């Protein structure tokens, strides 16, 4: 009979904040996607003259044979090879001079772990006292700092979006959603509305579920808008051929269960603590810890197992961006967790005194 009235009233009262946040997210998400082409260029820092030098490796039992060959430079006395651990060649670990041909076999020792060491080789043309760089090349596939940390590259749009998502979209949206999930109920306490509202013939359960639904559906709508904005923005920079629009939409909308858990934790904190300030604190700490653990798990190798304990890890945004199958069990886990938390919050809310 009165279904939806509480939701409607919440929207009438708070729509300005909700709309404002959508605008903020649209501008940020749309704006950052626009920056993709310049980012991707900036991270394609080729080694100087790498097109002039070829490196081939032959791994033997006791050592590695590195065969270097390079483009011939006219009128030179000889060539030198500098070997370094860094691409700036500032501290060469080895140097071979007086090479008359345009190729050279260089022997490299395995490192202490028996692995192939990563080295940069600079070929220099020597003419009298002058030295001129022919080119630099390495014996391994180069990684950007982002590749090294997250194992993804700014070089493709999926990696770019994944890094944006995991470094701060999830945090930005999560914190705002946590904030409104707490306030959707505690504001009725703090602005002394709860007595009046609950003196009408509406059950606490219905009131609670409608409040929960408002935030949940708002979040779903927000994510759908994020999906649309991404599609539009990426289309406008001409990259929609590298990522499918359905994958963009799916990756966005299917993030919903992660946020549902955040919403559930926040409403639980709200009804238990009955104070916006305290409950927002708990909600933020929960979300920041999730985020922090996930970060640490990404950065430090032996700590990857920690990520199992974070809800963010149960949503593979990156795979979804590549259009790969989404782990149904993971999504189900998030949904079940959210339902359990919501039931707990509802029981707490039904049994508590309404504070004055």
């Amino acid at each position, binding site marked *: *009979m*009165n279904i939806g*009235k509480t939701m*409607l*009233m919440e929207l*009438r*009262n708070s729509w300005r904040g909700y709309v404002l946040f959508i605008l903020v997210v649209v501008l940020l998400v749309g704006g950052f996607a626009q920056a993709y082409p310049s980012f991707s260029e900036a991270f394609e820092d080729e080694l100087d003259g790498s097109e002039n030098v070829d490196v081939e490796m032959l791994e033997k039992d006791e050592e590695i044979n590195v065969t270097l060959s390079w483009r011939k430079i006219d009128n030179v006395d000889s060539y030198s090879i500098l070997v370094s651990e860094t691409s700036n060649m500032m501290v060469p670990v080895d140097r071979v001079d007086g090479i008359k041909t345009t190729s050279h076999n260089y022997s490299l020792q395995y490192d202490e772990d028996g692995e192939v060491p990563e080295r940069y080789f600079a070929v220099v043309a020597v003419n009298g006292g002058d030295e001129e760089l022919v080119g630099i090349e390495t014996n391994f596939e180069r990684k950007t700092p982002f590749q090294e940390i997250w194992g993804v590259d700014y070089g493709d749009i999926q990696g770019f979006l994944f890094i944006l998502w995991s470094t701060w979209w999830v945090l930005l949206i999560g914190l705002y959603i946590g904030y409104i999930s707490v306030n959707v109920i505690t504001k009725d306490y703090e*602005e*002394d*509305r709860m*007595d*009046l*509202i*609950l*003196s*009408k*013939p*509406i*059950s606490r359960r219905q009131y609670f579920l409608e409040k929960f639904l408002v935030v949940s559906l708002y979040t779903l709508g927000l994510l759908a808008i994020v999906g649309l904005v991404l599609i539009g923005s990426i289309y406008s920079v001409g990259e929609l051929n590298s990522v499918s629009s359905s994958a963009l939409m799916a990756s966005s909308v299917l993030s919903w269960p992660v946020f549902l858990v955040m919403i559930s934790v926040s409403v639980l904190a709200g009804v238990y603590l009955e104070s916006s300030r305290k409950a927002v604190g708990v909600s933020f700490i929960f979300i920041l810890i999730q985020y922090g653990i996930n970060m640490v798990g990404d950065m430090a190798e032996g700590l990857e197992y920690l990520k199992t304990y974070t809800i963010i890890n149960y949503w593979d945004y990156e795979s979804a961006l590549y259009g790969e199958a989404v782990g149904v069990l993971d999504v189900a886990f998030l949904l079940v967790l959210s339902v359990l938390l919501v039931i707990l919050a509802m029981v707490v809310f039904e*049994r*508590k*005194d*309404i504070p*004055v």
Partner: protein
Amino acid sequence: MKKKPVLKIRNLTKLYGDVVGIKDLDLDVYPGEIMGFLGPNGAGKTTTIRACLGLLQKTAGDVKIFGLDSHEDSIEIRKRTGYLPGDFGMYSDLKVKTILRYLLSQSGVSDESKMEELSALLELDLGRKYGNLSKGNRQKVGIVQAFMADQDLIILDEPTGGLDPLMQQKFYDFMREEKEKGKTIFMSSHILAEVEEICDRVAIIREGELQVVEDIHSLKEKMGKKLVVEFENSVDPDIFKIEGVNDFEIDGRRATMIVTSNLDEVIKKVSKQNVVNMSLDTFSLDQLFLTYYSRGGKGE
């Protein structure tokens, strides 16, 4: 009144941890009466009301409203009960009309005539934003919403706070009309004069315990009046040893006494002396309590 009570409270107890909110409260409110619930601040009036409405979980006891269990059938009860909280707020950015319509529809009522009528009576502008209203006007919103669904039982927690005397009078008249229509009103107050003016019966609560439930007129008679007389010369205290005069005290030429009966005889005795000043007062609530307890409290 031998009708079945609309509101029946038995042994109602509410503890906040170790602190007693209310203890073993028994009270009946009968159909068609205005019952005043009187007590100083912090006595447990609001706790009682909120426990009846299920806003607080009672520690022990039993509350029946319309013969229905206050916990099990709380939705059915709330369909038939209007409530004005002692302290309430509403959505500041919304218009009064929007808020009232929402609350009315939550009661499952679509007829807005009573809302319009009562707003007009109290001169409440429905087009204004709630947040821009003065304290008195906000109180009017609370009053309108409590009565607008035309329910059988109306529970009011300190209903006249913030209303000016003219509005209070209009509101008292309105409550009397509602009573004539058969509505039952249970209202808390800490203002004795208010309760005296409109209530049929009064229940007095102090420190969480019910002290007395009385017809308002018999209570007043029982309590008597406070007479203070200042004489020109000193008088013999023995002349006031009359039945119905209690707590006689004389301080120099100033005599204070509580007169519960034989007022005529007392005045005649007074008139035989030279009087400088005299006052005869109904008790304020504080004095009433003071007197009540000095005479032995409950069961007197």
